[in-house]
């Protein structure tokens, strides 16, 4: 875990003071809402349908128990006793009072947290692999590199008024658990001839014009990492369109220029930027990396687990993943109980997860882009006790990556941009497929729901995606098939005319029935879909 030094703390404290001053000016009437809006947005404070929403940054989704408890405290003291973990590995609170927001930021600052750049047309919170530091397949821990980007991008004077918001992900494995190619910049750390470097994928994104990021450069030497990123941003800032917000993302620029021409311009800019001394010395990376040193594993920890409790064994098989250290495992806590709201957790549950992290996972937690929580380093001998505690707290849903592990945006229940509700649809689907045996028979099936074309619920990347639209004043749901946010990134295809709320649940069931009929041994839904194509499913849906 990265720890602030005096400089980091001074910068966050300054932001608390600055924002407190801005809110005071707003409440005193010295500033109009129009003037205040860009300032509050720079602090993650949105005005939604019913109240202010505050989004708190969780850099690369990593936090410790002290920070997690603070998130519970904020839910209890300033909100309605719950928080919502987001697809950007952050948390947001839906019922915030403007006058409380300076106090909330002050509370967050006491545990090295903030809401800086969680909204606005700037470089947003850096996302990463939730298994960083625990996965066997990584070439390096991506978090020090994400932290370098966090510092470089914080209050970046040139890139705080970009054409649009800008999202960067850093991973270090071939298996992509962070939807890296659906970011404005996706960085994969790679090794070549024993040297670390970074592959840059630029111009991906979802929204109304989804695109998979093309590879712009396959190997940027690691000592050029920040300069190359700066060059990517500068070319975008100079040319990115300002006339139409729907065409302002970098994906549109790269689509219009062509990836090769964009890459050429970045290269030209980089040749200049590299002379500016933007890249910190290796000593700074070493300083940061030291915070992410492996925890003090027990080398003698037993590698076997007693599977005699059948319910525990189901959870173990579904939610627990292989750790690089023998005797340890990666635990996924699903925030998707049947009938629940995807990504929501009560303050009591957040406290339980904090306690478990402190006791069993070297004080560390991760938030995933699928809106779940990970305890990255759990000794296998502790798994059963942990599962019992999770069960007690209603946190032991054994549905990771199954059809009820749904990503959903807040939708029309909260969001002022939404055209349709997402949460009730997610709940109905989870209820329809509530039988866990049935879900396990269906296997890995990533279902993602957005309540409008902005795609915050990642519907383009769902094996099955749902897009809520407004059709003549009623909520209508379009179905998409074949998307993926993993290393085999693909964009889903709309099946045809949309459905009402119950109709879309029926349509999904026709799709899953068809899959069970068509699948070959060992095929996931996505594999079968790719093998047989769109038509058999379309016919099953519409007859």
């Amino acid at each position, binding site marked *: 875990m990265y720890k602030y030094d005096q400089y980091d703390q001074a910068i966050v404290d*300054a932001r608390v*003071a*600055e924002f407190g001053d801005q809110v005071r000016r707003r409440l005193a009437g010295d500033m109009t809402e129009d003037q205040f809006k860009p300032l509050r947005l720079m602090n993650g404070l949105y005005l939604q349908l019913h109240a202010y929403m505050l989004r708190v940054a969780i850099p690369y989704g990593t936090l410790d128990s002290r920070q997690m408890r603070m998130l519970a405290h904020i839910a209890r003291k300033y909100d309605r006793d719950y928080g919502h973990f987001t697809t950007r590995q952050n948390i947001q609170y839906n019922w915030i009072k403007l006058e409380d927001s300076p106090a909330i930021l002050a509370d967050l600052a006491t545990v090295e947290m903030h809401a800086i750049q969680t909204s606005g*047309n700037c470089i947003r919170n850096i996302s990463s692999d939730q298994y960083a530091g625990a996965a066997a397949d990584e070439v390096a821990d991506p978090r020090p590199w994400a932290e370098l980007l966090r510092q470089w991008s914080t*209050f970046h004077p*040139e890139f705080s008024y970009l054409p649009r918001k800008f999202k960067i992900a850093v991973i270090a494995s071939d298996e992509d658990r962070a939807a890296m190619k659906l970011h404005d910049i996706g960085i994969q750390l790679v090794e070549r001839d024993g040297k670390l470097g970074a592959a840059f994928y630029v111009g991906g994104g979802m929204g109304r014009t989804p695109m998979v990021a093309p590879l712009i450069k396959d190997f940027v030497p690691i000592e050029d990492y920040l300069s190359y990123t700066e060059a990517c941003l500068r070319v975008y800032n*100079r040319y990115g369109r300002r006339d139409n917000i729907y065409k302002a993302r970098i994906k549109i620029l790269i689509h219009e220029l062509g990836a090769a021409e964009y890459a050429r311009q970045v290269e030209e800019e980089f040749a200049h930027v590299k002379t500016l001394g*933007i890249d910190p*010395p290796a000593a700074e990376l070493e300083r940061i990396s030291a915070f992410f040193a492996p925890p003090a594993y027990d080398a003698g920890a037993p590698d076997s687990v007693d599977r005699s409790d059948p319910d525990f064994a189901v959870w173990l098989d579904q939610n627990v993943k292989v750790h690089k250290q023998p005797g340890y495992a990666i635990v996924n806590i699903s925030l998707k109980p049947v009938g629940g709201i995807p990504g929501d957790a009560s303050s009591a549950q957040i406290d339980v997860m904090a306690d478990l992290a402190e006791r069993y996972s070297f004080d560390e937690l991760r938030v995933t882009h699928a809106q779940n929580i990970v305890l990255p380093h759990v000794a296998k001998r502790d798994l059963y006790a942990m599962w019992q505690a999770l069960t007690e707290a209603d946190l032991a849903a054994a549905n990771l990556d199954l059809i009820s592990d749904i990503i959903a945006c807040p939708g029309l229940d909260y969001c002022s941009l939404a055209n349709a509700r997402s949460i009730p649809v997610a709940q109905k689907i989870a209820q329809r497929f509530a039988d866990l045996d049935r879900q396990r028979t269906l296997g890995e099936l990533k279902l993602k729901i957005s309540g409008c074309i902005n795609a915050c619920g990642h519907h383009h990347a769902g094996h099955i995606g749902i897009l809520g639209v407004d059709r003549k004043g009623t909520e209508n749901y379009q179905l998409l098939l074949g998307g993926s946010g993993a290393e085999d990134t693909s964009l889903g295809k709309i099946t045809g005319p949309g459905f009402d709320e119950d109709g879309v649940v029926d349509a999904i069931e026709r799709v899953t029935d068809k899959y069970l009929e068509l699948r070959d041994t060992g095929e996931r839904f996505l594999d079968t879909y790719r093998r047989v194509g769109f038509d058999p499913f379309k016919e099953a849906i519409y007859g």
Partner: protein
Amino acid sequence: MAELRFRDDAALEQPAVTLDSFLTQSNATAVRLESDEDARLLIPHLDRLALVEVAFPKFRDGRGYSSARILREAGYTGELRAAGDVLVDQIAFMRRCGFDSFVPDVPLDAEAVEASLNFYGQVYQGAADAGVPVWKLRHG
């Protein structure tokens, strides 16, 4: 006359001409760069420039921040002015990008500007000002 000026030399009285005019007129010493114009075109002519005015038609249009840095990085030392929809809470970023004078459409409260320039004692990254990135402070 600029509303806010962070320079000791006398303000230039000559009006700024358009980029097109500047590139075809050999005697102009002040130019106005619209937000969609390429600052790099000025680089061969920096030695005869005393004022570059960069337009901010809307505060959200941040192209001018890059224009400013490009000019400073190329060695321009004359007056660099931000003009248009320039708001209090942008001045600090603009200063870091190299702007040293400001002509906002709506006059700014001097005290608020002063306060906004003093909130932050540290910066994380190098830019066109004298700010020292914290990684340099950490490692000397």
